[in-house]
């Protein structure tokens, strides 16, 4: 809900371009996860982050706990990157709350 604000809500990219998705947190977030929900509805784990940066292929994610945000960078977007990206904030006693998602469409 409002505790995790995800932007943009939708994004259309040309194949081969780069972009960044962002989540802002209004709760004391300890760790962050990023997921990709594919068109079949399955949630795929992308990153699990303590404060810092991780990279995996064309994806890179940063979690800045002091400024309460996380970003997901997509480099050289491919058609298979299409789907809905969710960030999730881990906080309190093992509670996890999600952003509303960014629907990403990659155009050839």
């Amino acid at each position: 809900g409002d505790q995790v604000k995800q932007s943009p809500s939708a994004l259309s990219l040309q194949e081969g371009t780069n972009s960044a998705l962002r989540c802002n947190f209004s709760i004391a977030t300890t760790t962050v996860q990023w997921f990709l929900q594919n068109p079949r509805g399955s949630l795929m784990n992308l990153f699990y982050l303590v404060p810092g940066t991780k990279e995996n292929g064309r994806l890179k994610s940063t979690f800045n706990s002091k400024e309460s945000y996380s970003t997901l960078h997509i480099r050289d977007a491919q058609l298979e990157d299409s789907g809905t990206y969710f960030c999730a904030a881990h906080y309190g006693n093992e509670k996890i709350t999600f952003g509303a998602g960014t629907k990403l469409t990659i155009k050839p």
Partner: protein
Amino acid sequence: EAAVTQSPRNKVAVTGGKVTLSCNQTNNHNNMYWYRQDTGHGLRLIHYSYGAGSTEKGDIPDGYKASRPSQENFSLILELATPSQTSVYFCASGGGEVFFGKGTRLTVV
């Protein structure tokens, strides 16, 4: 990767009936979660559990009960199903990083 299995994958229930959604995980995770996903709302937390015998209310617990009889199993129970509970339900487990099942599509008619 963690294995989280939900059953059934699809369910049609009648208004006022009882529905039980089941979730099983084989990775010995302490924490398990139930979410629902509706268009425009992302995933919202219904109930969660820290281990066998424990259930905790999430952000939208009204109309739902949960049961954690063992480390592996976590059920979501709708005692009196209503059409507003038509949704896709996801179970997850984790001890830090969480992993999701494939979801259960519930339609209450």
